């Protein structure tokens, strides 16, 4: 993976060079290279325990890396906290979405960053309602009423609101942690469409998933992880869906499994 030819245009927003992380003697991740550029979707694929969550934690500032280099806009950085990552515009949307189901959509949208006005520092609810409405519309999410509790939205819509929120609050990179994991086919489609929307609006998107069928349609590059290390970073034109699926499942392992599960041919062998 010395394919790290300097990006043609400006330096990528984030770049991992041979990055790794050890927790004490346990080496959770090593040898990972990846770039995240504006207007691109990087898909991180891997089975459970492949190192996806360790990579997210490094990129989002939860844990600092212990090997290799992390570059933000070309300069090496080490994130001491999620806040440090946030201040560089790197936002993570976790699986649980950080929403409060009983609260209205607009209150959720601005939670923790409420707009206030007037001598009593009151909530500027008119402006927040309006902004929520327009920001969601920009992502193609049309709600009849931003006052409805966010718990009444579908899973896909809630994901999309979380993405829209990240975008509005100045994210330049959005890290999505398995956004489609708990969703059905239709709802996953909704989320994939918003990922494409975010990309078209010039964001760098890191899309973590273990489903190649979700990754392939929206991804520009694919980082495949297995057993804590990288199987490679592939541009879309160098990898077919079938190849990716085979690589991900640990092609050899799957073949062996298929062999094992094969019904014995009737007749001679039995």
């Amino acid at each position: 993976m010395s394919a790290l030819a300097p990006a043609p245009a400006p330096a990528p927003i984030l770049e991992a060079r041979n990055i790794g992380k050890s927790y004490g003697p346990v080496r959770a991740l090593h040898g990972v290279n990846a770039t995240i550029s504006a207007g691109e979707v990087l898909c991180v694929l891997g089975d459970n325990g492949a190192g996806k969550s360790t990579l997210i934690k490094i990129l989002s500032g939860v844990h600092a890396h212990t090997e290799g280099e992390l570059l933000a806009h070309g300069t090496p950085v080490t994130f001491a906290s999620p806040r440090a990552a946030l201040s560089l515009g790197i936002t993570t949307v976790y699986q649980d979405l950080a929403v409060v189901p009983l609260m209205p959509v607009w209150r959720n949208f601005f939670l923790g960053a409420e707009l206030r006005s007037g001598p009593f520092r009151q909530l500027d609810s008119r402006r927040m309602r309006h902004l929520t409405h327009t920001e969601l519309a920009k992502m193609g999410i049309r709600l009849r009423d931003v006052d409805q509790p966010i718990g009444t939205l579908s899973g896909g819509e809630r994901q999309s609101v979380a993405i829209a929120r990240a975008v509005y609050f100045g994210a330049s990179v959005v890290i999505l942690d398995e956004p489609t994991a708990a969703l059905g086919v239709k709802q996953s489609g909704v989320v994939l469409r918003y990922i494409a929307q975010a990309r078209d609006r010039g964001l760098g998107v890191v899309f973590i998933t273990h489903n190649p069928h979700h990754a392939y349609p929206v991804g520009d590059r694919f980082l495949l992880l297995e057993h804590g290390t990288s199987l490679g970073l592939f541009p879309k034109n160098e990898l077919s869906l079938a190849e990716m699926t085979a690589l991900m499942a640990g092609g050899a392992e799957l073949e062996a499994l298929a062999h094992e599960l094969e019904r014995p041919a009737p007749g001679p062998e039995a």
Partner: protein
Amino acid sequence: MNRRSDPLIPTTDPLSREDTHPAEDRAGAVHHLVRRPELGALVAALGIFLFFSLTTDVFLSPAGVSTWLYSASLFGIMAVAVALLMIGGEFDLSAGAMTGTTGLLVGILTTQWGLNVWIAMLVALAVALAIGAANGLIVMKTGLPSFIVTLATFFILQGVNLAVTKLITGSVVIQGMAQVPFFDAVKHLFGSTIPVLGLDLKVAVLWWFAVIALATWVLIRTRTGNWIFAVGGALPSARQMGVPVLKVKIGLFMTTAGAGWLVGMLMLFDVSTVQATTGIGQEFVYIICAVVGGCLLTGGYGSAVGAALGALIYGMTLQGIVFAQWDNNWLKAFLGGMLLLAVLVNLSVRKRVGATA
């Protein structure tokens, strides 16, 4: 919702239609319900008001009205504070005993040790806020349910109230408050009666209205209110979004304790005496008022007006039963019935909105 405008999925698709429209109608109905947590309590309050107005002569008389309003106001101030705390996802079982502790403290400091009454009140307020902060700190730092932590505080306060009062005064009642210097000045603030529209309204009722207004404003119009709903509705989410969870929760416990102080003062300066058992057994009444007013036991939902209506229901029933000359014990049975009904209604709201929470 976006499906309608999405060209990729034809709107004639029977599947998408079936799946969209009922969901939207349901959401519409539910979020209207959700915006009005106090609706059920309002209907019940009107019903009870009409019932006692028609069945007793005294209920609608000026004296009758001021009596049940006063009764409702003392419970109401506490119920509103407890409602804020419950919306924030916690309970405070020491809230009742706190009304006794603060009253006793002022009583002892002034009548026994001759401290200036204003200073004694400040000391009592400081003690109350400190106990509230301790409740909050223990709950947040240990992760223990507030139900247990404040149950312990409740027993401690109950025991200390009695033991210390007996130790210092030799009896379980504080007397002689009226002889304390500046007593009359403070009585203006907390124990006076004001004629309003032919009613001899106790000043406590005005305090109650002020507390309702302030709590409603905080809940709906301020950032703090947003945070209260958030910490009660989904604590981990609130934390992730940068809400100062510890501050909000401790602030809520201190608010409840502060309300306990206010009610302690209102009672002390109304009757100029205080019993060592004051407030014991009322902690559940506050919680019931809040729940009848639409607060969810699980947090994240409710209103100050609702809790106030819950207290109004309680006050009207408490005095109405006396006016009707019924056996007082019916009150408890009625209260239990109201609570059960309210919890069932609240549960259905929760189920429809927060199924995923």
